[in-house]
């Protein structure tokens, strides 16, 4: 194997996945929670399952933990079919959304709980618990009961408890959902740090796209029990495969239209009466006249008072709304046809220097490589 500078085992055909979902389907009565999923997750990955509630991401994780069994298909961990293995015999540990700390045990006993079940010698357990307490910086709170510590501390106890057994795979079910924003951001970095230190494979379930983008090496976007796209965060953001993914991750303008012409990677899209066709680039082969969507992120659209020179795409409109967020501003610009396009720009100047305000005419422009052409 050649020395890798970038961690990307999914691109190396020789690397063996730690987890392999093989045609997995899960039904609850008539409801199909997971619909024929194939998925590989590799060792040391920080893998995020992302989707709205009810998309099946939690069911997928619970199947890894052993709380649900697939209706069809098999799940392999370390080259072994784990279908018949009960949760207590699996080399996986899970951090629950509610943390599920045992209220009758103190922090130390909570962390030691899993180790005691293995029947390890007492001093080995004590040493391991101390190590875990150090890792999550809770040495001072070892004697406290879960209800005597703060939410953030509880979250760390839960993490220490499931890391204590040094699992092959750690499952995190919305681990930061109960924390406030600032603490959540701090903890995201802490999680990444711990994941790197311990070298454990993490699978995280979240509905927070920012969280998934921040922590994960790869993100799987799910919808109605299916994997819509599995890719690194930057690919998910810059090259979504469908309008669903584009819309779910971040802010986006989606302009429906029809293919006017295609020449190699260059494509033009008719999208509105009286507006010039959008010039874009794509690798898809699209028949002229077929329906297509042009998706473009607001920050990739420039806004100016005068018509920009030499822009591949430029449209004129009227500023409808300005959302001032301090570091950036988002402009809602209404075109003559009634469409509203969002453009974002960094406030590099003081706000007083802005060229336009509400109801002013403004030009929007973007390059031909700024957006994505989607066929669904």
């Amino acid at each position: 194997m050649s020395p890798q500078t970038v961690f990307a085992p999914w691109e190396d055909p020789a690397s063996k996945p730690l987890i392999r979902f093989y045609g997995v389907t899960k039904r609850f009565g008539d409801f199909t929670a997971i619909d024929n999923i194939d998925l590989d997750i590799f060792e040391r990955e920080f893998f995020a399952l992302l989707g709205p509630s009810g998309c099946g991401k939690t069911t997928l994780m619970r199947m890894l933990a052993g709380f649900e069994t697939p209706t069809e298909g098999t799940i392999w961990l370390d080259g072994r079919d784990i279908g018949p293995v009960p949760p207590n015999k699996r080399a996986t540990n899970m951090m629950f959304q509610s943390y599920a700390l045992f209220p009758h045990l103190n922090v130390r006993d909570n962390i030691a709980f899993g180790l005691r079940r293995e029947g390890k010698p007492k001093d080995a357990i004590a040493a391991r618990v101390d190590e875990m307490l150090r890792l999550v910086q809770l040495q001072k709170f070892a004697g406290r009961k879960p209800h005597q510590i703060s939410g953030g501390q509880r979250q760390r106890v839960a993490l220490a408890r499931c890391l204590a057994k040094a699992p092959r795979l750690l499952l995190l079910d919305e681990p930061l959902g109960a924390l406030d924003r600032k603490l959540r951001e701090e903890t995201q970095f802490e999680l990444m740090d711990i994941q790197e230190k311990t070298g454990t494979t993490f699978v995280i379930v979240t509905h927070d796209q920012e969280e998934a983008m921040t922590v994960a090496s790869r993100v799987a976007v799910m919808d109605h029990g299916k994997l819509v796209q599995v890719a690194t965060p930057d690919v998910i953001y810059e090259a979504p495969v469908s309008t669903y993914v584009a819309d779910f991750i971040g802010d986006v303008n989606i302009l429906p239209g029809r293919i006017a012409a295609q020449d190699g990677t260059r494509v033009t899209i008719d999208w509105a009466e009286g507006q010039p066709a959008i010039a874009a680039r794509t690798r898809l082969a699209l028949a002229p006249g077929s329906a297509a969507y042009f998706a473009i992120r607001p920050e990739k659209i420039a806004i100016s008072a005068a018509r920009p020179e030499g822009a591949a795409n430029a449209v004129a409109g009227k500023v409808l709304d300005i959302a001032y967020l301090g570091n950036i501003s988002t402009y809602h610009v209404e075109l003559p046809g009634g469409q509203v396009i969002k453009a974002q720009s960094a406030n590099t100047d003081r706000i007083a220097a802005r060229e336009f305000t509400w109801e002013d005419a403004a030009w929007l422009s973007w390059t031909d490589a700024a957006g994505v052409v989607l066929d669904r």
Partner: protein
Amino acid sequence: MRRFSWINATSLTLGFAFLYLPMLILIVYSFNASKLVTVWAGFSTRWYGELLRNDAFLGAAWVTLKVAVLSSTLATILGTMAAHVLVRGGRFAGRTLFSGMIYAPLVMPEVITGLSLLLLFIGIGLDRGIVTIVLAHTTFSMCYVSVVVSSRLVSFDRALEEAALDLGCTPFQAFRLVTLPIIAPAVISGWLLAFTLSLDDLVIASFVTGPSATTLPMKIWSSVRLGVSPEINALSTLLIGIVTLGVITASLVSKRAIASRQRDEQAAQQT
């Protein structure tokens, strides 16, 4: 705050007089020095002393205690198991029917319960005595236990059991190390409830007992037929005391559990 009117005061007095006057009279007369129950002849604890020397009563008390401890313990084990299956067993055929049926003995006339048990014991040829009373009491008190325990289990976070399994517990270990310690207050108050029910019971015990075993309520009932003695009053007063103690303890245990749970939840919300 509304003013406490005289109408409220009257209805409260009337209601409580209706409930507790008979018992109050009984307790007062248990301290009567006279042998005649209806004639007050001054305060005395004489009958309590007599009671302690009455072997028949003491024997009956001993039987009652044994029956109550054994049957409430059995009922607690069975009732907790039933509650666990009904709340946690997942979906299985007839679950709703079973959940409904667990409550049926609560409303079943005692005479019918007693009679059917008697027929059963005769049918299988079991000698009637302490064993049959214990079995009978277990039968009717286990549904009370399972009602108390299942109401606690319903609000129990399922993830706690799953976490225990995930950390390497067998399902039984998960129950013993995690579920049971957390629901212990409900189990204890269930036990106390079963204990008091067994202590009180006259009808079912009379049906299923044999000549060898007489419980205290049965003894009291048969003695009263020969005339009420001050000794019976003293005994009944003691019984009232024990039952009151049991009920108060049970409610205190569950109240404390609820209070501590609320405290935990509040603490969880604040942080």
